[in-house]
């Protein structure tokens, strides 16, 4: 296999005189867990917005799931899933209603959402919570529900933004177990995070600074390349230019 699920070539975006993303290139394999790290303003969010079809590049381009980010952004929006730590779940709805709502957003029929919910129940462990108000869920379960809502339509690429921030370490392990299983099935995972507890689950990490990619490699490669004991130290070295 080893087909590339995301290809970015010479991608650039400026807002007036401000260069947000400065000619970056990288590729992500299908089934890879790929982390995008960077300080605020490094260009991470702008990159993600271009990859998710929300923003047009100024120059360069690429493909996401085979779709062109310059022209086929409507197709991209349909083939990706997106989950943020700042969940967009509706607290007043039940778990089941939230799943129905998000299924509807992705154009799934009520029946199809029920089928998918049944398929996902075991992995997500949400069965006993289905009729509960979302507000009553412990944080770890809310994160799993948010993931469930993001994968109802079986996307081939999932974007995760600080998915397990603040959760206890066991809940985090259980969440990443789900992510690992998805990746093993060939789903591509792109993670943005400020937290090294999450970064260390990635197969490869891409560090951005001042609109450019300043290092890219597996966690072990980055530590070796920059002579650091932790990814956090790698990051600080790169960002401070020490």
């Amino acid at each position: 296999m080893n087909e590339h699920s995301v290809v970015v070539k010479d991608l650039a975006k400026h807002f007036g005189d401000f260069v947000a993303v400065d000619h970056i290139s990288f590729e992500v394999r299908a089934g890879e867990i790929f982390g995008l790290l960077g300080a605020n303003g490094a260009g991470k969010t702008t990159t993600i917005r271009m990859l998710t079809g929300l923003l047009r590049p100024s120059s360069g381009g690429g493909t996401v799931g085979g779709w062109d980010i310059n022209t086929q952004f409507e197709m991209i929006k349909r083939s990706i899933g997106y989950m943020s730590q700042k969940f967009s779940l509706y607290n007043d709805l039940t778990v089941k209603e939230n799943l129905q709502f998000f299924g509807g957003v992705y154009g799934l029929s009520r029946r199809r959402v029920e089928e998918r919910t049944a398929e996902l129940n075991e992995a997500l462990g949400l069965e006993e919570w289905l009729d509960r108000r979302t507000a009553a869920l412990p944080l770890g379960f809310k994160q799993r529900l948010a993931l469930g809502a993001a994968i109802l339509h079986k996307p081939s690429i999932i974007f995760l933004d600080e998915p397990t921030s603040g959760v206890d370490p066991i809940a985090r392990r259980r969440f990443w177990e789900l992510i690992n299983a998805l990746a093993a099935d060939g789903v591509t995972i792109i993670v943005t995070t400020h937290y090294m507890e999450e970064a260390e689950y990635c197969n490869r990490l891409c560090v951005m600074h001042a609109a450019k990619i300043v290092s890219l490699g597996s966690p072990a490669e980055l530590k070796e390349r920059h002579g650091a004991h932790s990814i956090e130290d790698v990051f600080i070295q790169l960002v401070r230019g020490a």
Partner: protein
Amino acid sequence: MSDPAIRVEGLAKSYGETAALASVSFAVERGEMFGLIGPDGAGKTTLMRILTSLIDADRGEAWVLGHPVAAEAARVREIIGYMPQQFSLYSDLTVAENIRFFADLFGVSKEARVARTEELLDFSRLRPFVKRRAGALSGGMKQKLALSCALIHTPQVLVLDEPTTGVDPASRRDFWDMLERLRAQGVTILVSTPYMNEASLCRHMVFIHKGKILASGSVGEIAALFSGTVFSVEGPNLQAISARLRNTVEPELVRILGDAVQVLALGERRGDVGALLETMRQGGIVSDSREIPPGVEDTFVSLMRE
């Protein structure tokens, strides 16, 4: 013997059926950096609100520099600086105006305010941005401004609720450097974080989970509570390695990281896990396995399971 900077004894607080805190006790020495380490919902914020006299405990007592919080709330508020998680800066006001606002709120005299503001602008390196609207600051700079506002009345004890949540690692490290400088000036700091790797920045800490203290001590003392072995395992198919290990130990003790599988062999399981790894090595499933020192998170996981 002087009183500790903070002492809590048997603190308990429930919201309806939920026990946010269940009999929590610890003491913070003067001039130390003390960490309250635990995930969201552990009870960290409730504890800090009791200490700052914003809410009352159902049971137990708290003292700040020897003053009982419940009986001497006004006095405690003078000596404590508090930075809540959602610190409300006025985004339409400039950096200088925000500091001025908090000075007035705390009744700081004009003379003291002017001198203190100068100190704080140097300390936080916010001077170049003094006329910038708070809403236009980066996340890291907002945190520095929030800290400056919490310091305007020169508190002896500083209570910070997850000050580094949502901030990038470089800004986070700057922020911790600022805290260390304050501590070196003699300020006692109680700081909470859900991020286990920040524990090592504190001299003493408590691990808190579901309203209970799991462990307390220095990083070294807490690490010594971990009984078991952490193995880092490599091989061509990490998913396959993990599946085999999960048949032997509980699933949450096995995790697939970017380029290795880590397994916690707790207590007596070391032999079983070691033998399984050896079998997998002979079968070519495992190419390399070695023991690595347990991290703070590993200790937390082992304590959560007790």
